[in-house]
């Protein structure tokens, strides 16, 4: 397989880019694997990559009902940050951020990670107090986060309106400088290529219909549209469809699946230098390298598997953006879409073992799973390989909903995230 470099780029440029190899083969399922991962998104492909690279387990298949990276990996707004309030979350998301930092070099695939900074706007006294609390908590956990005055925020993000007459006046902002964006598709493709290079099979358009267990309760494999495939271990990383898949193994999940929508504008010249989020008005915006404004907000109010969502939410989102950035109120929107996100009661992920021997789960990332991709994948691979929790994912158990040791980011952020 081609090693990407300036030289390989030049060589292929001279032959009109007609001789690039396929980056990974479309594999046919074998009869049995050591590990099957259900869901070929960034998390699932990443877990396969780390299983092969760090744990030497290469007899692995990643199976998806659609095409690779076609679920929430390809549908999110690509924001990366780690400024979470609680210690457990800060460790997990900051671990991911550490991995984002060197991911392009590690994968020899440009994931276009850009640490352009995430600016979270404070519009009222409560916001100011709550963000300052976040900043202090983050600093104690070694996570960078800085308080900016309205003037400093305006210098960092010139399109911001900090005038006193603004509908939602800016009273300051929290800035995480290491935060930013990455190219979502490239993350799935880079991990797929890296995993495939090490012998992992990627099986697309093959829905997993059930997880099978033996008489001793242990996982024996999965039923798919192409028949039974045996496996010693199964890891489910199926986002919005996780509870459907887990149900077939007899494990009921504390999850609800909601549509989360996003939209992009027509592409324009560079106008917006960072990511801006406003929890109070509830919308977030950045500009992609193609020039589109990438906009999102919260989930629809009702559970659904429709991958659509309703227009009232789009209207709310665009209204919020126009209130904060009046300069965008004549931008034309190009596309909008929805993904199905699996939300837990405490808005923190579930990542680790299950009551079923040989069955692992990575789910509940709600509206913010993209940023965690490398960290979730890395620690999931550890747990699957060693059959024990990694120090970082250990608090994110399924049992916490019975013991009461919740990681209540829902209360901390006051919005889904």
């Amino acid at each position, binding site marked *: 397989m081609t090693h990407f470099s300036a030289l390989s780029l030049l060589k292929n440029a001279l032959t009109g880019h007609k001789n690039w190899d396929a980056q990974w083969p479309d594999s046919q399922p074998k009869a049995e694997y050591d590990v099957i991962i259900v869901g070929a998104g960034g998390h699932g492909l990443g877990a396969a990559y780390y299983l092969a690279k760090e744990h030497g387990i290469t007899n692995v298949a990643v199976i998806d009902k659609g095409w690779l990276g076609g679920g929430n990996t390809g549908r999110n707004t690509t924001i990366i940050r780690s400024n979470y309030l609680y210690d457990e979350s800060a460790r997990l998301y900051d671990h991911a951020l550490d991995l984002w930092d060197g991911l392009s070099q590690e994968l020899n695939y440009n994931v276009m990670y850009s640490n352009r900074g995430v600016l979270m706007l404070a519009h009222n006294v409560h916001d100011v107090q709550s963000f300052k609390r976040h900043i202090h908590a983050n600093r104690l956990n070694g996570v960078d986060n800085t308080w900016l005055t309205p003037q400093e925020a305006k210098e960092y993000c010139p399109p911001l309106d900090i005038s006193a007459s603004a509908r939602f006046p800016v009273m300051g902002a929290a800035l995480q400088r290491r935060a930013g964006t990455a190219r979502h598709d490239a993350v799935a493709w880079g991990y797929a290529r890296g995993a495939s290079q090490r012998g992992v099979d990627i099986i697309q358009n093959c829905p997993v219909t059930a997880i099978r267990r033996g008489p001793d309760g242990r996982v024996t494999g999965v039923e798919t549209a192409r028949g039974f495939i045996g496996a010693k271990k199964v890891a489910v990383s199926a986002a919005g469809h996780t509870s459907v898949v887990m149900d077939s193994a007899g494990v*009921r999940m*504390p999850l609800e699946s909601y549509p989360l929508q996003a939209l992009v504008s027509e592409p324009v010249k560079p106008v917006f230098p960072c990511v801006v989020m406003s929890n109070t008005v509830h919308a977030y915006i950045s500009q992609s390298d193609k020039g589109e404004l990438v906009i999102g907000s919260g989930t629809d109010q009702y559970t659904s598997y429709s991958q659509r969502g*309703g227009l009232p939410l789009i209207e709310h989102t665009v209204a919020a953006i126009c209130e904060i950035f009046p300069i965008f109120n004549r931008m034309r929107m190009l596309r909008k879409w929805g993904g199905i996100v699996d939300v837990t009661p405490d808005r923190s992920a579930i990542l680790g073992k299950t009551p079923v021997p040989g069955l692992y789960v990575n789910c509940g990332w709600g509206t913010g799973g993209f940023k965690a991709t490398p960290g979730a994948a890395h620690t999931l691979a550890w747990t699957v390989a060693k059959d024990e929790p990694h120090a970082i994912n250990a608090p994110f158990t399924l049992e916490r909903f019975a013991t009461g040791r919740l990681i209540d980011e829902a209360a901390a952020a006051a919005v889904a995230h």
Partner: protein
Amino acid sequence: MLLIRCPYCQQTLPELEFTYAGQAHVARPDAANKQISDEEWRDFLFIRTNVKGPHYERWRHAHGCGRFFNAVRDTVSDRFLITYKVEDPRPELSDLLEKSE
């Protein structure tokens, strides 16, 4: 935009008038008369069917009569099979599917 029929007002109105209120027919454990285990509390508080297909759920006509009511909605198509009053019995799914064919 979903169009939802309020069984109290007997009107079909836009989604904006309503708030979603989660899965319906979730019974609270009888803690007054027996010991409830942590697992039973977990099931009551946190475990949901999250079904892909016909889903029994609650809605509230927040900007109308203000009352809670129940509904069965297909979570794949988002189509409502029925909305019914809180005091009405839980309709059988087989009857609803037969009617909606």
